[in-house]
């Protein structure tokens, strides 16, 4: 353990030990949304892989190379061997890098999770692409689809360079992402989802694009359990709008009620679109999130 920590790290986002654990983890989507290109995910139909699936009668026009000649020698009837089809899955990671994510290490936690999901995809020979939207300078940053372990450094370099500071709504960012994205798979959305935009439409278009939404809401400790004393003038970090709030006994209670409703609403939006949703505390340990929260919920295995 000590030796591992003294070694030069591949990325600042994940230490070696954690990275080695993550490399052995696999994504576990609800649906098998795959591309036709060859990959690691078995399809229900027959294909060209080495995995034997079944036999069927020979019909005219079938490739004679797949006739099982041993059976033909015994039974004097031609039977065709059928193999399973293996296709690849596109893992798309969307990182919300807006100003609101810069509070309380939310963006850091999002980048770490994005790296973890990316590593899982790459190590499972999935096609992995990363979109960082609402960045300070470029608006949206794209890591074009890559595959294989050799793409890991490129993945880490891209994620590490993400800086928070944009202020565009999340729904617009998803629309912009879908204009560039091709392929089916899962879409891991890492955001605090604190937006005035229409998230219902955003999840619909993700679903329509063949992406299973993996929505992870990252909230800071003060967003989960705010402290309010006296009279305050709150300023929105993204819009600069101000709101005067006076502490009163049940105002905090109402906040909690609204936050829970908001979270519950997001969860319903994703579940209705065969997706998954979880709300995590940015202050929680990354190991706890990966190996406890996500594994228990069946996101990874």
């Amino acid at each position: 353990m000590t030796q591992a920590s003294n070694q030069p790290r591949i990325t600042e986002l994940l230490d070696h030990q954690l990275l080695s654990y993550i490399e052995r983890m696999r994504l576990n989507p609800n649906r098998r949304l795959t591309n036709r290109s060859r990959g690691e995910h078995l399809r229900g139909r027959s294909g060209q892989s080495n995995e034997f699936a079944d036999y069927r009668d020979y019909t005219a026009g079938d490739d004679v190379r797949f006739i099982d000649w041993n059976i033909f020698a015994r039974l004097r009837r031609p039977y065709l061997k059928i193999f399973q089809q293996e296709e690849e899955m596109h893992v798309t990671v969307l990182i919300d890098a807006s100003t609101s994510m810069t509070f309380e290490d939310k963006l850091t936690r999002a980048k770490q999770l994005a790296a973890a999901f990316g590593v899982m995809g790459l190590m499972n020979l999935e096609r992995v692409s990363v979109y960082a939207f609402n960045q300070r300078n470029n608006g949206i940053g794209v890591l074009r689809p890559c595959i294989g372990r050799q793409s890991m450094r490129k993945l880490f370099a891209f994620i590490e360079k993400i800086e928070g500071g944009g202020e565009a709504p999340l729904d617009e960012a998803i629309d912009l992402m879908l204009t560039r994205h091709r392929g089916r798979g899962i879409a891991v959305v890492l955001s605090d989802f604190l937006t005035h935009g229409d998230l219902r439409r955003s999840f619909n278009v993700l679903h329509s694009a063949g992406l299973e939404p993996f929505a992870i809401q990252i909230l800071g400790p003060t967003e989960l359990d705010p402290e309010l004393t006296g009279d305050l003038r709150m300023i929105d970090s993204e819009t600069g709008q101000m709101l005067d709030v006076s502490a009163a006994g049940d105002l905090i209670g109402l906040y909690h009620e609204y936050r829970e409703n908001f979270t519950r609403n997001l969860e319903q939006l994703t579940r209705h679109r065969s997706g998954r949703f979880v709300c995590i505390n940015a202050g929680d340990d990354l190991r706890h999130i990966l190996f406890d929260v996500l594994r228990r919920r069946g996101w990874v295995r």
Partner: protein
Amino acid sequence: MSWPGFYSLGGAWLFLLMGPLVLLYFLKLRRPRQEVPSLVLWRQVLNDNRVNSPLQKFKRNLLLLLQLLLLCAIVLAAMQPYMRGNVADVQRLPILIDTSASMGALDRAGGVSRLEAARQQVHRMIDGLGSKQEIALITYSRTARKLTDFTSNKRILREALDSLVVEDVPSDIEDALRMTAALAQTEPFERVLLLSDGNFPSRSDFPLPFRLEYQKLEPAGPNIGITAFNARRAGDNQWDVFASIEGSQNFTDTPATVTATLELLQDGQPVGEPQRIIISQGQMQRLAWTVHGESATSLELRLTTDGFDSLASDNYAYLDLAPARPVWVYVPQSLFRHRLAFRGIPGVRIFPEGDSTTTSQTTFDIIVSDDPADLSRTARTRLFVGIIPPELQAFITTREEPSLVVDWQRSDDLLRYLNLDDHVLMTKPVWAEGVGEADLEERGFEVLVYGQSGPLLLRQRVGDDLTFYQLFHTHDSTQHYSIYFVMMLQNLVEIAMHQAGLSETAAQPTGVLPPLRVSPQMNYQVKPPRGSTRTMRSDPNALLAGIAAPYVGRYVVQESGLTGSAVAQIGASLVSARESSLHAQPAIEFREQSVQANLAEVKTDHSYWRTVLFVGLIIMVLEWWYFQRKPGGW
């Protein structure tokens, strides 16, 4: 219903601060700014109907409301609100507090004394004293004493009030009223509050120069006490001792009788068996004992009640008896007619005895002499015959002329039953030129018998000592031929017996002890039954006078110093029928007006600024708790 007033109405100007307070609140100049990730949730929360309900709006402005309330409380406290009492308009109020013996009576077993009840009442008045009101505390029992000048300093008033103790003496309300009237000359006031249990005479000749509020305290419980304790000579070496026991007027139990035990102690030893008595309400019982009295002896009478007795100080009485001896009379041989007359009076021993001209006896009860050298002899009663007092020799001369008695004071003890009309004198005392009776009175002499041109018999009282000067000699008159000569000497013996306590004596009441004959110009220590020892100095006449005896018990007088020997032990007793009766007068009749007792407690203005300030403090704490507490705490 009385409306509240304000001592400092000008403080209401501070209400104007409410304007800037409201202005500053809504300007929110100091509202802290806090950047948050997003206002999405907060906007939804604040748009909620529950937040915008009237109650929640009220809660949002609760801070302003609490701040206004806090400001109101502070301003009201600064205005010094008070609730008007019965003496709301009084700026100066002298309070007379009775501390006589009856004020020590308890209302019930284990209850509080009347003085304590009065003290609590005055404490409440002091608590409600306004800043512009002043109180002077005057206490009175046998005499009046000013405890404080007019002051609004509550600490001084409370300390003075707490120092009050009951004195076992009867009260003299007129002395207190005189002192109060004298106080009014320097610091005028209109009303005076009298706090008493009402145990004083119902009539007074005192002309009231102010309005008197007589605040009668709640009555005390039942009491029986010793109201008289005296002794009379009963033959040789014996005394008949009498005691009166009286019940108060306020027995409440049925039947209204109280049983008690009386125990008489002679020099600490019981005399006979204790006597059981039954006393009814307002009734008196007399009891008698016979004690031997060959030598000086001290008696103590103890009264023990079976039930509750509200006053303890009248349950003890003390009596000091002189030795039951003959009256010692010094008469020189030159006054053989006087010696002959004294021989016929029983209980008299004459010195020098027999035909001797000298005697070793130095102490006499009576000195009768015609020798100016005997003027230096001391006795409680002296009669000088044919001698003009040295200090009056410039005012009176004698002529060798016959004269008659013109008039005499028939009520005087020495001249009782005497008829001096037929006396013929061969000597004529004459006034000097321009001298009259007033000149003698200025020098302490009183004329008892008047001659044709001057006084014939003078009396001088120095302390308790009596000296008579007969300005003509007996053998120069027909006096010794009259029966009245013997009667006058008989009266003289009775006076001497009374002076020496040889015939009858009564318990010494509390107040001031009689002068003691001691060594002149010496310091003596007086140890009272309670309190600290007091040092007093005897006067040039060898009298130790003015010994205060405010408490029942024995007072020991001894010479100063660690090894000072006891000079006298004198017992002081309450023996006051009025104090023991605990009778409460419902009114006092003065010359021109009657003052009725008021049972309801006199209320002064009750200040509320502390209460208002306390409410302000609560508001401040409430505000702090409500707005500064941890969120989600409840």
